[in-house]
């Protein structure tokens, strides 16, 4: 049987039946012992486990019996981040969760075909789709009892309702033709960079496109942190802000169902180009271990990415109500039109198979950027010969007999270190001096979320890496003549919560990189 996961906004206003059943199941699963693989806590610990914070929040006590170490080793702290395993690992994880919740609902007398709803924050037909669904914000259920979908440690921007800002959930990743990438410092693609088992903190691999936006941004924007408290203490973070706590929050699962859906959307919106990796290292990876999750009976189910490719296959058995998007225009077509190319040149460029050449540095700033005190600006000095290669490429790409697509240009932020995983910064490139960033969305390169930052920074870790495609910004600078002869480009970091300080938060290096196509 194939079930259909539905948009939470299509289930009906407020307390729909599926959400009431979800709440009842959460309540029931919370009462199961921690060591039971189908318990709420066990499932959350599979994503990540921070005993200190869990104790502080009252989920466990110092005497709560834990599963045997071998069981912990098999299941716990396995979430894959900054990795091409991000999507397949979470797909299996969601399947396990949905199966277990459904069984709990059936046991409580609910429907046999319950499915996990997804939170489509981009649903254009709903006025406030980017707002936390109200059933999760209510303190009580319709019958006046405690609402298990509500958690206290969900701070947002410290105002109600909790809203995810629209500039942080743009569907930019959907335009990326590559699932994976990142060689030589270029963009890591839609699905993330090629890695081995990657729970975070192993090395400085960058966030994949979808993982970065909307995934990380939604985590940090919803979770937030306790106001007027030490933001470097995980106990002051919202559950959603920290990978070791996130899956304790019932909204986590609706968020991840949407991320999982967006993988299907990507494959669906350009079946000829948008393909999953075919390398065995991905299909059968990671070589160090087979991912394992419990089924409804608590029995171990093992899977590899190759088992996660078809959601309608018997082992998964679900589909999404809607996997359409307004058909994305190929990035290269949009760029060439903006650059003034003829329709023929654009058509040729779309037909041409994508070629990836090694990336090279075009410019860099010369000092660490301090993000602890709010807005920060840094100047990225441009190398003349490398910048000339970019402008030549942009000029040549629109010529009638053009053989090459224009260079892709990336902003690369290295060694992003910090201990407030809720921190969010919008990054603007080439803003005119004194300009209000909000008035220039065209200069928005992307958003940094520190989700996973603590894991990547502690024990002298190298921090997070973030790569944004800034080709369209560079195109505009080229067209307005700013790029030719420019010595430097300003990059501005604007915090989402400007009233806060983030001690010790910094970016090691800001670079601009070109990738010939």
């Amino acid at each position, binding site marked *: 049987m194939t079930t259909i996961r539905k948009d939470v906004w299509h289930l009906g206003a407020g307390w729909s039946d599926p959400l009431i059943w979800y709440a009842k199941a959460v309540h029931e699963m919370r009462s199961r012992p921690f060591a039971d693989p189908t318990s709420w806590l066990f499932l959350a610990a599979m994503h990540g486990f921070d005993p200190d914070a869990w104790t502080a929040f009252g989920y466990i006590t110092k005497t709560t019996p834990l599963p045997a170490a071998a069981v912990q080793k098999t299941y716990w702290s396995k979430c894959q981040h900054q990795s091409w395993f991000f999507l397949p690992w979470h797909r299996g994880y969601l399947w396990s969760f949905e199966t277990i919740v459904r069984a709990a609902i059936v046991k409580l007398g609910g429907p046999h075909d319950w499915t996990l709803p997804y939170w489509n924050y981009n649903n254009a037909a709903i006025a406030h789709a980017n707002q936390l669904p109200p059933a999760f914000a209510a303190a009580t259920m319709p019958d006046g009892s405690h609402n298990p979908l509500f958690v206290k440690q969900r701070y947002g921007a410290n105002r109600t309702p909790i809203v995810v800002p629209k500039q942080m959930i743009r569907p930019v990743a959907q335009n990326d033709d590559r699932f994976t990438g990142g060689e030589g410092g270029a963009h890591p693609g839609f699905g993330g960079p090629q890695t081995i088992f990657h729970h975070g903190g192993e090395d400085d691999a960058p966030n994949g496109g979808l993982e970065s936006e909307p995934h990380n941004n939604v985590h940090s924007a919803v979770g937030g942190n306790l106001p007027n408290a030490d933001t470097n203490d995980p106990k002051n973070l919202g559950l959603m802000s920290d990978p070791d706590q996130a899956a304790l929050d019932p909204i986590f699962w609706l968020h991840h169902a949407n991320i999982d859906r967006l993988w299907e959307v990507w494959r669906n919106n350009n079946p000829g180009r948008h393909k999953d990796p075919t390398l065995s290292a991905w299909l059968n990876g990671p070589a160090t271990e087979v991912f394992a999750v419990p089924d409804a009976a608590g029995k171990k189910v093992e899977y590899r990415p190759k088992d996660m490719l078809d959601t309608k296959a018997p082992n998964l058995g679900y589909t999404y109500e809607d996997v359409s998007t307004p058909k994305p225009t190929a990035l290269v077509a949009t760029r060439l039109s903006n650059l003034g190319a003829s329709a023929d040149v654009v058509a040729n460029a779309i037909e041409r198979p994508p070629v990836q050449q090694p990336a*090279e540095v075009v410019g860099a700033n010369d000092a660490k950027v301090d993000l602890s005190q709010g807005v920060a600006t840094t100047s990225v000095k441009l190398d003349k010969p*490398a910048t000339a290669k970019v402008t030549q490429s942009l000029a040549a790409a629109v010529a009638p007999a053009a053989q090459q697509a224009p260079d892709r240009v990336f902003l690369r932020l290295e060694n992003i270190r910090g201990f407030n995983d809720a921190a969010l910064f919008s990054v603007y490139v080439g803003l005119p001096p004194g300009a209000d960033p909000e008035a220039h969305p065209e200069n928005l390169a992307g958003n940094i979320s520190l989700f996973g930052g603590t894991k990547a920074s502690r*024990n002298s870790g190298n921090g997070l890496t973030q790569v944004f495609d800034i080709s369209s910004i560079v195109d505009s600078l080229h067209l307005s003549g700013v790029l030719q002869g420019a010595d430097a480009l300003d990059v501005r970091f604007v915090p989402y919560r400007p009233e806060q300080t983030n001690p010790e938060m910094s970016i090691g290096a800001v670079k601009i990189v070109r990738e010939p196509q």
Partner: protein
Amino acid sequence: VERQNVIAAKAGIQGPPPYVVWRLDPRFRGDDKLLNLIHRGDSLMRGWLTAIAFRAGRKPMPALLSISAFGWLLMLAPSPSGGLPFAICGDAAATALNQPSALLLQWIAMLVAMTPPLLDGPILRLWKSSLARRRAAMIACFVVGYALVWIFAGAALGGAVSALARAFDRWAFVVALALALGWRLAPGQQFAHERAHAAPRLRVFGAAAFADGARYGLRYGLWCICACWPLMLAALLAPIGRGPAMFAAAVLMIAERYLPRADPIYAS
């Protein structure tokens, strides 16, 4: 816990790592110790093999392995002073008889043989972080910095070898081996190993970039030596001939370089 916090603060670690405290919690030890041990060893082994396989096929590792192979051949060449090839010579006293210049050449040959596979990460990073036309020069700066540290360390290690040989005579190798094992389990070794993995900032323009490259090499070399000096001592004192001993030490060092990151023990 208080003491751990103080140590952690001294080591510049952000806050007390909570899992260190919890690792001491009896509930985390599980009920089947043997199974846990096997499980841990098994996943460590597979993690390590994958990490090595993951890097081995990717640039610049094949080139580095070729350079390393060339180094091993150099070590088999006869000593310029007419003595035995470095790889075959296995006696500390014989080493002392060689001239300093010959020793230096032999030491450099040994570095060319042993260290290139350890430089894969930094070289990839230098390649990514430099202007295309400066990549070779940046890597050269790094290598010079790295080699300089090792050459000075060579002198110090040579002194230590003589001292150990004088003090313990035939037992010098056993002492060095015990030292190597003890150091491998010490928090200081892990601390040094983690520092060696740090990715310092590399500037891109002007002389500052080259200075950063050289400094990166110096730092990387220094922490490498901090992590492995007793192992090098043991290899230099090994009674099986320097070639096989150095080869075994190189394999161990490469293995260590690609081991999955472990929880820190230096704060506990």
